[in-house]
């Protein structure tokens, strides 16, 4: 028996997420986050694989918040 795996960081595949933008220098009233879609977990670091819908590319980030709820229940925008 090995260690019990930790699954507390799991999220629904394809759910909406918000990725903290720590690449660019942000001005005071710029949006802090970008909308994205959750794609999975990174193999080589402790991070999530996400598709950034605003820059249209896949990136790895650990500073993300996920909208984990029933699929099809749209959040008010």
């Amino acid at each position, binding site marked *: 028996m090995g260690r019990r795996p930790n699954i507390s960081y799991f999220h629904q595949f394809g759910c909406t997420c918000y990725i903290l933008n720590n690449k660019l220098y942000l001005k005071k009233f710029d949006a802090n986050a970008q909308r994205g879609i959750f794609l999975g977990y990174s193999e080589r670091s402790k991070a999530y694989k996400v598709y950034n819908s605003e820059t249209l590319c896949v990136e790895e980030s650990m500073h993300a918040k996920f909208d984990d709820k029933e699929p099809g229940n749209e959040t*008010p925008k």
Partner: protein
Amino acid sequence: MFGKTNCTIINKDENSIVFKGKRIENVYKINFSELVDQKVICLLSVNDKKWVWHRRLGHANWRLIYKLSKLQLVKGLPSIDYHSDALCGACQKGKIAKSSFKTKYIVSTSRPLELLHIDLFGPVNIASLYRSKYGLVIVDDYSTWTWVKFLRSKDKAYDVFSNFCTQIQSEKEMKILKVRSDHGGEFENEPFETFCEKHGIIHEFSSSRTPQQNGVVERKNRTLQEMARTMIHENNLAKHFWAEAVNTICYVQNRIYLRPILEKQHMNF
């Protein structure tokens, strides 16, 4: 369908009548007490209301709204359940912050050389006696034993690390399993990857722009530099002795370092 005196609400799919209402002045009223025997599940979702109030109060924190309504501190706020497991998109865009980094209270490795943390510090503005400007710090996760290697330039990191690997593996007769580093160009390059593949070493990275995840070796870096600086300035030594000072501190630290989790010194290594 709305008529002059009454209205009927019809389910389109089944063509059955759901409600019948009478018109009283300008309002169609439905008597719900007559509908008890019918299956009426949901008439209006209260959900929308809480989102309206969330926005009206300038996207205030859910906990704050809940408290205001529960303790009745303001007039006119309806008392409904102000809890939400759904995220508000606008809130995230405006308020998102970096995630926190929790301290670990267990030792995750079970033998020496299972996991090595590596990092580079420098450039130091004054070259040492042997003209090195960078320091390569290698920390073993299990025993927290530290090695410091001095480099003249960053591109030497690969050669030094590969020599170190072969030497330490044959010395201890143990295999290195994992190496963890940041996304620095001196670690994330082709010869380094091929070396790792050849020797069966898994190369892990901390997430980009997140030095907190490389904390073990970053903290060691700080200790080494702080103590070396203290020692040099105490004795008014010339600054190009920094490599010697760091080396001494590394030697001393390996023998006196107390691990906070275990409250004891290094396991024998």
